[in-house]
C-alpha cells in the first residue's frame, strides 16, 4: 500500500478511535470529580479535580484483597479454559466424523442458553456438593466459557496442516505430545485471543460470582456493586473503581497483543 493511502487510513483510524474513546473520557474525567461536580456537568472537565475518589474507592473495594481474588479466579479459570478448550477443539477438528460434528454443535448450542434459566438449578447442584466457592466457580467458567473457546480454536486448527501431526507422529510422539509440543504452540495467536476474551468475561462477571462466592472471596465487580444501591449510586467511587480495575486488563491486553503475531505456520509445508 502506498504511503499516502496509509496515512489517510491512519488519520481515519485515529478519528474513529477518538469517537470510540469518548465514553472513556467520561469515565476518567468524572472519576476525578466530586459527586456534585459529576452531576453539575458530566461532559465537562473536572473543575476541582480530586483524587479522593481513588483513595476512597481503593479502600471501599478492599482493593488488594478483591484484586487477589479476581486474579486467582481469572488466572485459574482462563488457564484451564485454554487448556481444556484447545484439547477439546483439537480432538473435534482432527476427527472428521458425524460424532465430532455433533459434539461441536452441542458445545456451540451451550452458548445459546440464557444464563438466568440455569442459574438456580446450577447453584443448587453445586451447593449440594458444597462447591460454592472459588474452585466451583472456576469449574463453572470452564463449562460456560469453553464453548466459545472451542469454537474459536476449532476454526484456527483447520489452518494448521495435518502434516504437522503426521510428522510428529512419525517421530514417535504420543497424541498428547503432538498436541502439547506441536499443535498448542502453533495455536498461540488464537490462545492469546481466547485468553483476552475469557479474561474480559471473567474479570467483569458479576452475576455468577455473586451467586457462588462467599463474602470472603469477593472479587472486584462484586465489591464494585456495593457502590450501586437501590437508590444511591456512588458514581464518583464507581468510576474511580472502574478505572483502577480495568488497568490490569488493559496492561494485560497491551502485552498480549504483541503475541498475536503474523505467520505462525509460515515455513511449515511446501
Amino acid at each position: 500500500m502506498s504511503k499516502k493511502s496509509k496515512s489517510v487510513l491512519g488519520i481515519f483510524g485515529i478519528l474513529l478511535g477518538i469517537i470510540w474513546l469518548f465514553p472513556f473520557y467520561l469515565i476518567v474525567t468524572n472519576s476525578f470529580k466530586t459527586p456534585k461536580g459529576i452531576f453539575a456537568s458530566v461532559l465537562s472537565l473536572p473543575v476541582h479535580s480530586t483524587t479522593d475518589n481513588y483513595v476512597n474507592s481503593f479502600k471501599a473495594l478492599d482493593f488488594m484483597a478483591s484484586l487477589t481474588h479476581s486474579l486467582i479466579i481469572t488466572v485459574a479459570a482462563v488457564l484451564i479454559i485454554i487448556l481444556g478448550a484447545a484439547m477439546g477443539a483439537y480432538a473435534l477438528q482432527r476427527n472428521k466424523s458425524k460424532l465430532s460434528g455433533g459434539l461441536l454443535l452441542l458445545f456451540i448450542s451451550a452458548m445459546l442458553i440464557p444464563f438466568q434459566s440455569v442459574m438456580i438449578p446450577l447453584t443448587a447442584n453445586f451447593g449440594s456438593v458444597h462447591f460454592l466457592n472459588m474452585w466451583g466457580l472456576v469449574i463453572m467458567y470452564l463449562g460456560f466459557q469453553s464453548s466459545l473457546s472451542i469454537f474459536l480454536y476449532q476454526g484456527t486448527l483447520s489452518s494448521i496442516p495435518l502434516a504437522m501431526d503426521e510428522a510428529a507422529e512419525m517421530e514417535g510422539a504420543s497424541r498428547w505430545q503432538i498436541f502439547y509440543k506441536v499443535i498448542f504452540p502453533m495455536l498461540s495467536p488464537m490462545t492469546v485471543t481466547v485468553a483476552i476474551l475469557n479474561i474480559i468475561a471473567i474479570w467483569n462477571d458479576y452475576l455468577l460470582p455473586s451467586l457462588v462466592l462467599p463474602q470472603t472471596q469477593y472479587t472486584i465487580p462484586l465489591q464494585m456493586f456495593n457502590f450501586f444501591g437501590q437508590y444511591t449510586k456512588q458514581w464518583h467511587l464507581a468510576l474511580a473503581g472502574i478505572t483502577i480495575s480495568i488497568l490490569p486488563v488493559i496492561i494485560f491486553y497491551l502485552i498480549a497483543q504483541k503475541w498475536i503475531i503474523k505467520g505462525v505456520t509460515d515455513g511449515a509445508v511446501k
Partner: protein
Amino acid sequence: MMKNRSLSFWLFLTPTLVALALVVFIPVLEGLFYSFTNWDGLTYTKMVGFQNYIQLFHDKAFINAFWFTVGFVIVTVILLNVIGLGLALLVTQKFKGSNFLRTVFFMPNMIGGLILGFIWQFIFTQGFSALGNALHMSWLQNWLTNETTGFWGLVIVTVWQMAGYIMIIYIAYLQNIPNEVIEAAEIDGASAWQRFTKITFPMIAPAFTVCMFLTLSNGFKIYDQNLSLTNGGPYHSTQMLAMDIVNTAYNSSNFALSEAKAMIFFVIVAAISLLQVLYNRKREVDL
C-alpha cells in the same frame, strides 16, 4: 486424524465435556422439567403440562419482545460484522498507531455491560442533547424516550462495545493466513479489495462462522445493556427477549413460565444460529 473409538479422542474432550454437562446440560434439563411445573424458584406443587407453553404464546410482551429482538439482531449482526471486520482490516494495516487503535477499539469490552449502559445514558441524554442544541438537530434530542431512539440507542451501544470483540476474533484469524498465499495473489495482480474478497475472506470463513454465530446469539441474549440503558422502557417497548425472560422470573416470581420461555427462546435461537453454522461450515475448506 483421531478416530471416534480412540481413547485419546475422548480423553481430550473429557474436561470440557464434563464441565459442560455439569454446568449447562444438567441444569438445562432441570429447567426443562421445571417448565412443566408451577415452580416459583423454590418449590413446585404440581405438574402443569404444557400450560406454560400455551400461556407464553398468548403473552403479548413476550411476542413484542421477540420481534423487537429480531429487528435488533438483524441490524446488529450486519453492523457488527461489517464494522468488526472493517476495524480488523484497518488495524492490521501497518501504519503508525495501528497497535494503539487495536487497544482503543477493544477497550469497551473491558467494562461490564451494566456500567456501560449507565455511562451511555449520560451520553444519550446529555451529550446528544447538548450536541443537538448546538447543531440544531432535533433528532439528537429526546433519546431513549421512545421505541425508535431506544432501539438505535441499544444498537449503538452494542455495536460500540462488541465491534472490538468481533474485531479481535477476525484479527486472530487474519493473522493466520499464510503469507505465501497473499503473496501469490499479489503476483496474480489482485488489488487489495480483490485480495480481500477472493483470498482473505474465503480463508477466514471460520472466523465469519464464529462471528456470525456470536453476534447472532449475543444479539438474542443481550441483557445488561438493555437493563441499564432503557430498562425495557418506555412501557416495555424496548424490552428484549432475555429481559422478558428474566423479568418473568424476577418480577412476578413465575420461574416456571420463565423457564418455558427460555426453552422456546433456546429452540428458536439454536435453530437460527446452528443453521447458520452448518451452512457456513459447508463453505469452509480444510487446508
